[in-house]
């Protein structure tokens, strides 16, 4: 009794300590936040320092320019000390690796939270144990990666300090309180993560389990806030606010944080991190599946890969819409910046991005079709897959068609202009929006098929339900394609609005058809169990492909977002006068991204190996008579 009560008391104290750690940075930062507000009084009292008034470049409010102006750098060892190598490339590498690992360790605890919660609410004891073990395996991988993230963060700061001291000095002078809060949040994150991980076995039942689950919520709140703070720096570099035109800080730290692009970046990054984390864990599971020696292991890792893929794709589906919002805000902030991104210097990188997005969705669909193979009764869908392939390919080809192509004068002459007479018509936004929405809708349809693969609905209205679902998807396709075609016949200012109903059509399929399908499959007759582990090897390569494509795309989009500042450290405030203030060629950028991807995967394999050294064996409690040996997740999926 005493021991249990002691444990509970300890757990509650640990949770309180975590919440305290979460609030600590805020408490510590309060005086810092007040600096701006107190500054005028301070001037009056001292009467010595006179501050000029400045006007916020974004918010257009007036304030005392208490900060120093942005330094006017010159190319030389003082502002740009260097090795005999391009400093930007070194920084690029350090930044990208830190971001990869940062994304991974922020995403995985969110998965843990979801999976642990599923374990707590699942009534099937065997499944609950399995979910719990899976969440534990995830956090263990994350823990090793966490150390590496911190090390890479240190390397990144040293790279900034030694190679770009003037720029980093300016940035840290603006973000001084934010950087301290960030550091304290990092301490809070570390403390919470370690208590969460090491308290796993001691807090596995009853109230203690709920306290443990609450700890994962606190951990993820801290992690998300950390990311938001880091996003404020890049938001400031792209769309500065809270400073005057000379770059002088005007005393309002919230203006500096809350720039025009901060919120779109936050949403885009959190979704991106989740999809990336899902991809990496799915690739890990695929690797373990391929290396498995027993059916039991294969069943476990097949299931793990499916869960990770499903979680990742759940965040991948809304990701293009978040990206669209970000781009819309970029256009709203500076139209020229938007044009540079999507219609100018960086437009070709967007074609590559479209190709990668298409690959992500094709891989996901391919995996789901392969996964139908491990279900008895799912054969009925196999003959329709070819139609989905056709639809996907059409959407994909339209989506990747460039508006104009780089050509030699002879080619230009032969084609009769920069645009191809036929294909050029598909290189416009109206067609591309149609293309990607068709791809996403098809992915949703594949998921619906997968979820009902081995089941036959027994509800009285199943006939109407099936027909309604079919008609709904058909009408959704027609509406998306109709809106894409309609866009050609109306002026640009009206056309631009068509993307909203197109997106709403796709999301309608997601939000209406999933619950409808779930309602129809309630108490459904099972044609056969899901035979975990009985999936083609090809499907596992699709998961690896998914993860690799995502890693590559993250590197690409990071480069695009950063490059759009062109020759500015801080857009229109602090000019980059280093010899590397130019935009690399597409080929160089692609090679650099590939190198970053390769390095990340080699290093994460090392992390996986480290994690596997002390890995507990997953408790696979096989149900009698189920080939593959593993119990099915609740509801079959």
């Amino acid at each position: 009794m005493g021991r249990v009560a002691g444990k509970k008391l300890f757990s509650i104290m640990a949770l309180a300590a975590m919440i305290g750690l979460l609030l600590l940075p805020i408490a510590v930062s309060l005086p810092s936040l007040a600096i701006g507000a107190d500054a005028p009084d301070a001037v009056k009292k001292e009467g010595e320092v006179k501050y000029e008034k400045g006007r916020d470049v974004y918010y257009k409010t007036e304030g005392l320019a208490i900060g120093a102006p942005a330094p006017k750098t010159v190319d030389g060892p003082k502002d740009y000390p260097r090795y005999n190598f391009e400093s930007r490339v070194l920084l690029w590498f350090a930044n990208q690796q830190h971001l990869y690992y940062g994304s991974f360790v922020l995403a995985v605890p969110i998965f843990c939270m979801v999976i642990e919660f599923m374990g707590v609410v699942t009534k099937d004891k065997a499944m609950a144990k399995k979910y719990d073990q899976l969440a534990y395996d995830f956090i263990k991988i994350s823990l090793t990666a966490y150390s590496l993230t911190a090390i890479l963060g240190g390397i990144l700061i040293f790279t900034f300090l030694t190679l770009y001291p003037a720029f980093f000095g300016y940035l840290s002078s603006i973000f001084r309180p934010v950087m301290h809060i960030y550091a304290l949040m990092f301490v809070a994150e570390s403390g919470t993560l370690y208590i969460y991980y090491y308290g796993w076995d001691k807090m596995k039942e009853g109230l203690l389990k709920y306290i443990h689950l609450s700890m994962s919520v606190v951990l993820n709140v801290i992690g998300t806030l950390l990311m938001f703070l880091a996003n404020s720096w890049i938001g400031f570099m792209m769309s500065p606010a809270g400073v005057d035109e000379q770059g002088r800080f005007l005393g309002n730290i919230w203006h500096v944080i809350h720039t025009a692009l901060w919120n779109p970046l936050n949403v885009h990054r959190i979704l991106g991190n989740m999809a990336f984390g899902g991809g990496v864990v799915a690739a890990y599971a695929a690797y373990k599946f391929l290396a498995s020696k027993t059916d039991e292991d294969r069943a476990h890792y097949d299931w793990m890969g499916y869960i990770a893929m499903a979680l990742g794709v759940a965040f991948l589906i809304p990701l293009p819409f978040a990206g669209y919002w970000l781009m819309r805000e970029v256009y709203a902030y500076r139209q020229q910046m938007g044009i540079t991104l999507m219609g100018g210097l960086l437009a070709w990188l967007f074609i590559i991005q479209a190709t990668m997005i298409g690959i992500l969705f094709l891989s996901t669909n391919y995996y789901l079709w392969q996964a139908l193979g491990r279900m008895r009764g799912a054969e009925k869908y196999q003959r329709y897959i070819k139609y989905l392939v056709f639809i996907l390919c059409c959407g994909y080809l339209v989506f990747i068609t460039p508006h104009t192509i780089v050509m030699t004068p002879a080619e230009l002459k032969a084609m009769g202009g920069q645009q191809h007479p036929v294909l050029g018509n598909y290189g416009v936004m109206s067609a591309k929006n149609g293309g990607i929405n068709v791809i996403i809708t098809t992915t949703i349809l594949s998921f619906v098929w997968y979820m009902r693969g081995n089941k036959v609905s027994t509800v009285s209205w199943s006939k109407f339900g099936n027909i309604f679902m079919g008609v709904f998807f058909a009408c959704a396709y027609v509406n998306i394609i109709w809106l894409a075609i309609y866009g050609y016949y109306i002026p640009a200012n009206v056309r631009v609005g068509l993307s909203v109903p197109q997106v709403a059509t796709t999301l309608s399929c997601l939000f209406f058809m999933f619950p409808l399908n779930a309602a129809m499959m309630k108490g459904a007759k099972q044609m056969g169990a899901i035979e975990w582990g009985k999936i083609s090897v090809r499907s596992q390569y699709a998961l690896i492909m998914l993860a690799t494509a995502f890693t590559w795309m993250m590197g690409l989009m990071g480069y695009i977002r950063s490059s759009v500042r062109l020759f500015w450290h801080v857009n229109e405030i602090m000019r980059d006068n280093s010899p590397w203030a130019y935009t690399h060629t597409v080929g160089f950028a692609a090679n650099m991204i590939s190198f970053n991807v390769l390095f990340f995967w080699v290093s994460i394999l090392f992390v996986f190996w480290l994690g596997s050294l002390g890995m507990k064996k997953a408790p696979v409690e096989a149900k009698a008579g189920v080939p593959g040996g593993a119990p099915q997740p609740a509801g079959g999926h």
Partner: protein
Amino acid sequence: MGSAIIYGAISLVICVAYFLAVDHFLMDSQGLDFWYLFRK
């Protein structure tokens, strides 16, 4: 077969009405006219 046709017709009416409403109201919420081409 007869019921399938009726179900299909009902579904079609509901879906067409729903997607037209989506198109109209979401364009309207942006201050744009979905029926621009037809009114011209």
